[in-house]
């Protein structure tokens, strides 16, 4: 299990190459990458604020919960903060398990919990100004399925 919170970009390929390599019993790896979308064509950047200290703890707790629920061999979460341009990578999650069902379920669980339980806040900065992204009911609802 590992957690990294950083402003620097990351390389999904390089991260996956080093992830769960040579761990005995790995049959399935799942990765998720979140990317900045610009739905209106006016986004200058997405500014991501976080709560240093709590962020790492909250993500580690979510990972520990995933490990307790599924047969996981490893997990990785990287989340960036600071200003991110459209098409830049925001974050990634990776899971490794003997079987695909565990790897998929744990990756989706990690994503759902990261969205609503890790202390990050997004602000959209456009030519018209800056606006905090509102939490979506759908994201809160997504937690209920677990």
């Amino acid at each position, binding site marked *: 299990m590992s957690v990294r919170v950083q402003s620097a970009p990351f390389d999904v390929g390089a991260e996956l190459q080093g992830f769960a390599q040579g761990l005995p019993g790995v049959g399935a790896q799942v990765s998720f990458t979140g990317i900045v979308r610009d739905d209106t064509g006016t986004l200058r950047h997405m500014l991501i604020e976080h*709560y240093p200290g*709590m962020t790492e703890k*909250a993500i580690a707790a979510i990972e520990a919960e995933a490990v307790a629920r599924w047969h996981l061999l490893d997990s990785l979460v990287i*989340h960036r903060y600071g200003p991110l341009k459209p098409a830049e990578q925001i974050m990634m999650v990776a899971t490794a398990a003997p079987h695909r069902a565990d790897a998929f379920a744990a990756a989706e669980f990690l994503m759902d919990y990261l*969205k609503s339980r890790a*202390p*990050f806040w*997004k602000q959209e900065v456009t030519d018209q100004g800056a606006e905090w992204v509102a*939490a979506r009911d759908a994201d809160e609802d997504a937690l209920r399925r677990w």
Partner: protein
Amino acid sequence: MNVMYFAWVRERIGLPQEQVETKAATVADLVAELKAREPRYAAAFADTSALRVALDQELSSFDAPLKGVREVAFFPPMTGG
């Protein structure tokens, strides 16, 4: 006690964090004290149902006791991922 503010809570109050001397028994009591200080606090805490609170970096609730707590953080619902 260190009190921290994030996202639009930070913007409304105009500070990322501050030291607060308080005898408030619960988070709700602390919020009432802060709201009584100045309009910017009253504005930030107008609707606590739109806010979240963490005590010593763990998500908590507004009726939680503050005894022994060193760091309180107020912020809107998270929007990471």
